[in-house]
């Protein structure tokens, strides 16, 4: 596991921050972000896939009323891929829409999907060698979040009550200047010890958080980040060249 990894630094991987609005479709946006990033890393192809297709063609057909990342991947497998965001754009309304998957050309597809072990070291290793993955966390602290690294306890953020899916795009450690700046020079615990963190991409627009991203402490299962680490696989096992995270 390298000391840091940030897939946003790889050309083409950093796609625009999605905005789910009042549609409970974080699960679809996280899955779409996962597939887009993997296609860019694996095939050097920058694609934006249709989130609306994931909502309309979901097995329950009520995408804006919530769902899970594995539902999104099952939809991609059932539809043999996804149309582009341009062809099949996001509408985000609570109204149900007919599945139009057959009307458009597929721009990306997956071989299968997997859930990683519930272990932050394993997650970091997979992230660094394959690409961004989706995770599902407790979003309680995100409502008032502005910036910095959130380090919660089970009492302040229940790791079992996960309710929001996002894309994990990297990890790193704070430098001492950030810590001083964040807490006005009055660090309470270890003034010079860097804090390891995860970098996560949210789907609440670029106005929120750190330009649409946020950071969670790495190594303490903050907000249940290890509960459902899922990722698509875009190539056949054993038939891939190693990739390295910037």
């Amino acid at each position, binding site marked *: 596991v390298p000391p840091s990894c940030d897939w946003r630094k790889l050309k083409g991987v950093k796609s625009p921050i999605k905005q*789910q609005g*009042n549609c*409970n*479709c*974080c*699960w679809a946006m996280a899955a779409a972000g996962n597939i887009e990033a993997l296609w860019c890393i694996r095939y050097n192809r920058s694609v934006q896939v249709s989130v609306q297709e994931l909502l309309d063609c979901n097995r*329950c*057909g*009520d995408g804006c*009323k*919530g*769902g*899970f990342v594995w539902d999104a991947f099952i939809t991609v497998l059932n539809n043999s891929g996804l149309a582009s965001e341009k062809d099949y754009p996001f509408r985000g309304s*609570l*109204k*149900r829409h007919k599945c139009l998957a057959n009307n458009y050309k597929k721009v990306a597809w997956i071989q299968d999907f997997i859930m990683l072990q519930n272990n932050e070291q394993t997650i970091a290793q997979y992230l660094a060698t394959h690409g961004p993955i989706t995770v*599902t966390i407790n*979003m*309680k*602290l995100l*409502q*008032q*979040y*502005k*910036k*910095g*690294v*959130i*380090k*919660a*306890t089970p009492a*302040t953020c*229940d790791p*079992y*009550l*996960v*309710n*929001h*899916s996002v894309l994990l795009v990297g990890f790193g450690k*704070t430098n001492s200047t*950030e*810590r001083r700046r*964040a*807490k006005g020079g009055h660090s*309470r*615990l270890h003034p010079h010890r860097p*804090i390891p*963190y995860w970098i996560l991409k949210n789907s*609440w*627009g670029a*106005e*929120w958080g750190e330009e649409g991203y946020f950071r969670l*402490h790495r190594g303490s299962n903050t907000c249940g980040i290890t509960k*459902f680490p899922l990722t698509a696989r875009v190539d056949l096992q054993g038939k891939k060249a190693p990739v390295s995270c910037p």
Partner: protein
Amino acid sequence: DSLWEKDLDPDLLKLKQVFELFRAQYDRSYSNPKEYARRLEIFAHNLAQARKMEAEDLGTAEFGMTPFSDLTEEEFEQLHGHQKITPGETPGVGIKVGSEVMVES
């Protein structure tokens, strides 16, 4: 309004000013004065919560005014999460199929 505001607690006046900044920044309007008062109350509660979160946080996080500062925790979860899950339920069991979906004719 201005006469009435003179009798108010200065902290409340300051809060209202911050709330007006929030409304301007995130383009919020409310249907009636009662709703405005309710949202102001939620906003004040959330700012207090943000202070508490920042004090309890063990990292470097800063909490404060965000686009969601006029929502209750329940509203926020219902609007922006992936769905409401009761503690102890397995996720798959929590899925509601169809029944509450509004369909336009």
